[in-house]
C-alpha cells in the first residue's frame, strides 16, 4: 500500500519595520535585554496599542504578491492565553477576518509547475523571549521582541513531500526578501515555520489525521522533521493504530518528533474583537495602486533572465532567487555586455567566497563595476582566467578595483611573444628531461612545461600563447 503525504506550512515572518506593531519601540535585533520596551509592549496597565501603518502596508504588499484577496474591513482580535513571554496574556492578532485570503504561490518542483494555495495572510504581534537557566532554576524574560510585527502566512495542505515543502518555503522566503518586508533569517528567528502533516492511502480523497510539528529551526530541520513524522505515521497506520491529533516537537538531537500536547489540552483562545483598535476599511484604489507598484518577483525575473540573457533555467533560477544577487548580476551584465560570464562568476567563485565568509553580497566590497572590469580584463587578454580568480580575492579584501590590483601587483598577462619566448627558452633549458620526454612522444610533457612557464611568470603568462610558442620551440629544437 502506498501512502500519500499531505503537508501544509504555517510561516511566521518578522516584518522589517523600524518600530513595533503597536508602539514606537525599535525592532532592531540583538539589543541588550529589555532595552527596547515601553509601557505598550511591556503590557503595563493602562497602556494602549496604536497600529503601525508600515506593518499594515507590508502585510498588504505581501498578500498582493501572493495573489490574495484583500479584506475590505480590517479588524484585529485578541487571542487570550497565559504565557510569561506574553505580557498582556493576550496577543493582538486577527481571527475570522485575516487581512488577506485565497492566494497562491507558484513553485517549480520535480520538473513541473505547481500552484500552492495560500489560505490566509494576517498581521499580529510577537511575544517576548524566554531563556532558561536550568542550573540556577531561573528563567529570564527579554521583552525586546514583544510587539514586533509578525506576518502569518498559512498555506493550503497542497504539498506532497518534505522536499516540495522546502521548495515552497524557499520561494516564499524569496518573495518576502524581494519585497523587502522581511530578512527571513531563521537563525535570528525572523522566519519561523510550523508544519501540519497527515498521510492517506494513495487515491484516497479524505484527509488523514494531521499532527502539527514545531521547533524546526532550519530548512533542513523542516525537511527532516516532515520525513520523520511521515515515517512514524505510516508505521502506526500499518500496525493498525490510530494517529493522535496533537502537536509534536522536532528534536534535533534524537532526530524524532515528540508529543507536546494532546487535543484535550488545546487552548480555547476566547477570541473577540480588539476593542482598543478601531476597525477600518481599505480603499480599493489604494490596493490597485499597490498592486501596480509591486516589484518584479522571482518567478517573473527568472523567466526574463532566460529570455533576455540566454541563461539556462537552473542558473536563471538561482540568480533570480536573491534580489541582491540578481540586481548585481544585471548591472554587471549591462556594464560588461557579457551576461553569461557574469552569471558564471556569480554562481561560481563569488558564491563560494560569500558562502565561506557567510555574508551577503551587499555587505562586501565587491561592486558590479568590479565584476564587469574583471570580465573586460579577461576578454582583452590583459589577465588570465587564473589570475582573475586571485584578483577577485583581492577585490573582496581591499575594495580596490581589479584594474588597480593588476597595476599594483603587476599582474598584467604576458602576451608579448618576445617576452614569452625568452622565458620559455629558459624553462626549456631548465627542464631538459621533459623536452626529451616530449620528443620521445610523451604529449603530456608539454603540459608540465606550460606549468613551469606559468610558475616562472607567476601565472601571468597566457597559457594558450605559451603552449603555442612552446610547441614551435620544441619542434624547432
Amino acid at each position: 500500500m502506498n501512502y500519500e503525504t499531505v503537508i501544509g506550512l504555517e510561516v511566521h515572518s518578522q516584518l522589517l519595520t523600524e518600530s513595533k506593531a503597536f508602539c514606537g519601540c525599535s525592532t532592531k535585533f540583538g539589543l541588550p535585554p529589555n532595552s527596547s520596551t515601553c509601557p505598550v509592549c511591556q503590557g503595563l496597565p493602562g497602556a494602549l496599542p496604536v497600529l503601525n501603518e508600515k506593518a499594515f502596508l507590508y502585510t498588504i504588499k505581501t498578500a498582493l504578491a501572493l495573489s490574495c484577496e484583500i479584506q475590505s474591513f480590517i479588524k484585529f482580535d485578541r487571542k487570550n492565553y497565559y504565557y510569561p513571554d506574553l505580557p498582556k496574556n493576550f496577543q493582538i492578532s486577527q481571527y475570522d477576518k485575516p487581512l488577506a485570503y485565497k492566494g497562491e504561490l507558484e513553485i517549480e518542483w520535480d520538473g513541473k509547475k505547481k500552484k500552492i494555495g495560500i489560505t490566509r495572510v494576517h498581521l499580529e504581534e510577537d511575544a517576548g523571549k524566554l531563556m532558561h537557566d536550568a542550573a540556577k532554576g531561573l528563567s529570564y524574560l527579554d521583552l525586546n521582541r514583544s510587539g514586533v510585527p509578525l506576518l502569518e502566512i498559512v498555506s493550503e495542505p497542497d504539498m506532497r513531500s518534505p522536499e516540495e515543502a522546502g521548495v515552497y518555503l524557499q520561494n516564499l522566503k524569496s518573495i518576502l526578501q524581494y519585497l523587502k518586508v522581511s530578512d527571513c533569517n531563521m537563525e535570528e528567528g525572523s522566519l519561523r515555520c510550523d508544519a501540519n502533516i497527515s498521510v492517506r492511502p494513495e487515491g484516497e480523497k479524505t484527509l488523514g489525521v494531521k499532527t502539527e510539528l514545531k521547533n524546526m529551526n532550519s530548512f533542513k530541520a523542516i525537511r527532516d522533521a516532515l520525513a520523520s513524522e511521515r515515517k512514524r505515521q505510516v508505521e502506526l497506520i500499518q500496525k493498525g493504530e490510530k494517529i493522535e491529533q496533537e502537536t509534536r516537537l522536532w528534536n534535533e538531537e534524537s532526530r524524532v518528533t515528540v508529543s507536546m500536547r494532546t487535543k484535550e489540552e488545546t487552548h480555547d483562545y476566547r477570541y473577540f474583537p480588539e476593542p482598543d483598535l478601531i476597525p477600518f476599511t481599505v480603499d480599493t484604489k489604494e490596493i490597485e495602486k499597490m498592486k501596480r507598484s509591486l516589484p518584479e518577483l522571482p518567478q517573473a525575473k527568472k523567466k526574463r533572465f532566460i529570455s533576455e540573457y540566454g541563461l539556462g533555467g537552473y542558473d536563471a533560477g538561482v540568480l533570480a532567487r536573491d534580489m541582491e544577487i540578481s540586481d548585481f548580476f544585471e548591472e554587471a551584465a549591462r556594464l560588461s555586455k557579457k551576461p553569461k560570464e557574469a552569471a558564471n562568476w556569480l554562481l561560481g567563485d563569488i558564491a563560494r567566497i560569500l558562502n565561506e565568509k557567510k555574508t551577503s553580497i551587499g555587505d562586501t566590497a565587491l561592486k558590479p563595476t568590479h565584476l564587469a572590469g574583471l570580465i573586460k580584463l579577461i576578454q582583452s587578454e590583459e589577465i588570465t582566467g587564473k589570475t582573475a580568480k586571485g584578483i577577485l580575492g583581492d577585490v573582496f579584501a581591499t575594495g580596490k578595483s581589479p584594474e588597480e590590483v593588476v597595476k599594483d601587483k603587476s599582474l598584467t598577462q604576458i602576451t608579448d611573444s618576445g617576452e614569452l619566448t625568452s622565458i620559455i627558452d629558459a624553462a626549456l633549458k631548465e627542464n631538459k628531461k621533459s623536452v626529451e620526454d616530449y620528443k620521445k612522444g610523451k604529449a603530456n610533457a608539454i603540459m608540465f612545461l606550460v606549468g613551469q612557464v606559468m610558475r616562472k611568470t607567476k601565472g601571468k603568462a597566457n597559457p594558450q600563447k605559451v603552449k603555442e610558442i612552446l610547441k614551435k620551440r620544441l619542434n624547432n629544437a
Partner: protein
Amino acid sequence: MNTVKACISRIDEVNDKLNAIIYLDKEKALKQSGTPISIKDNICVKNEPTTCASKILEGFRPPYDATVIEKLRKKGFALMGKCNMDEFAFGSSCETSRYGPTRNPWDTERIPGGSSGGGASAVAAGEVPMALGSDTGGSIRQPAALCGVVGIKPTYGRVSRYGLIAFASSLDQIGPIAKNVKDAALLLGVISGYDEKDSTSANLPVPDFMKSLTKNIKNMKIGIPKEYFPEKGLDKEVSAAIEKAKNTLKGLGANPIDISLPHTKYAVSCYYIIAPAEASSNLARFDGDQYGLRENASSMIDMHIKTRTMGFGNEAKRRILLGTYSLSSGYYEAYYLKATRVRTLIKNDFSAAFKECDCIMTPTSPTPAFKIGEKISEPLSMYLSDIFTIPANLAGIPGISIPCGFTKGGLPVGLQFLAKAFDEETLIRAAYAFEQNTDFHTKEPKL
C-alpha cells in the same frame, strides 16, 4: 479655601472618618500651587502608587503618567494623591476596595456610590475642589448623585484612556467630579482632546465648554424616557425630586417631551455580558510576573493561581469568571456576540430619540445612598444601581449628574442629562441653567 494647604487641613480633619483619599504625599503636595485635584486610583500617576484599590497591584508605581495627568500638570493643577474606588472599578458602592469602604459625607453609615466613591466623597466633604473619576457603567455619575456633587461622563473617545487601567475598553471614560457645573466644565475642557497614543480617542476639536455656561435653555427639547420612570424599583422621593426638577426646567423655558427608549430593559444584561468579558481579558495581565503582588509557589502556574486568588477580591473574581465564560468556545455567539448586537439596538434608540429632542433627562440613581453592607452580598441587586447610567456607556454618549434635591433624611438626589455623542455643550448648558436657578449645589454636609 481652594489652596493645597487648606485642602490638607481639611483632609486631616475628615479623611480618617471618610476614607476617601487613600494616598497622599503631603510634602510633595505642598510643593505645588494651583487648583488641587485628587485622582482615582486607576489612573496612572508616574511613580505614585496606582493600585485600582486592589491587592494584586500592591506596590505598583507606574513609570509613566496617564495622558490626562500630563494635561493637568501642564495646566498647573496640584495633584493631591489618590482617591478610593471599588476594586478595578467593579462596583457601585465603593465597598470592594482593599482599603475598606469610603463613607458618604452626608451620612457616614452610607455608601458614597461607586466606583468613583472616593472622589465624590472627597469633593462633597470639601477635601478637594475637584477629582478625576472614571465611568464604565455609571461610576462617575452615580457617586456624584449620591454625594450631591457634579459628575460628567464624556462621550466615548472625548478623553484619552491612555494611562487609565482598563476595566471595559469599549465603555471606560475618565471624567470630572466637582462641586459645581462650572468647575466640572472647566476640568472637562482640560482633560479632553485627541491623543495619538489612544486609537479610540476622537480626532475632533474640543469646544470651549465655558461658552455653554449661558443659563439659557429656552425652547430646549428635553426628552423624558418612560422606561426610566418604572413603577417598581424607583424610590418615591427620587421620582418626586425629578418631577420637581422637570417643572423647574419648564419654568426656565425648556420643553419636556415624552419619548421612549424601548430597549432600555436589556441594557443591564447587555452590559454585564460585555463589560466582564472585556475585563476578564484586561485583567489577565495581573499574574505576578512583572509587577504588583507575587505569591510564592513551586511552579509558574501555581504562582499565577495563588497570586490571583490572593490578589483579587470576590467581585473581581466574579466578573472575571463571568467574562471568561461568556467568551468561551461554544458560548461566544450566544452571549458576547448577541450582547454586542443588543448594544447596537440600544444605541439606535438614542439616535432616534435625539432626532426629537436636544437632550434627555432621567434620575441618575434609582435610590439615594443605601447603607454600607446593605447590598454587598447581593450582586444582582447591586448591579441594578446602574440601571439608569449603563445605557449611556453602551451607546457611547455623554452624561452629567447634578444635585436636584434631598430626601427627607437629608440624602442627595441626582438628576441626569444625556446628550448625543460629542454634544457635552448641551449637557453643560442644561445643567448650568438648572443649577443656577436652584441652590442644591450650595448645600454642604455637616461632618
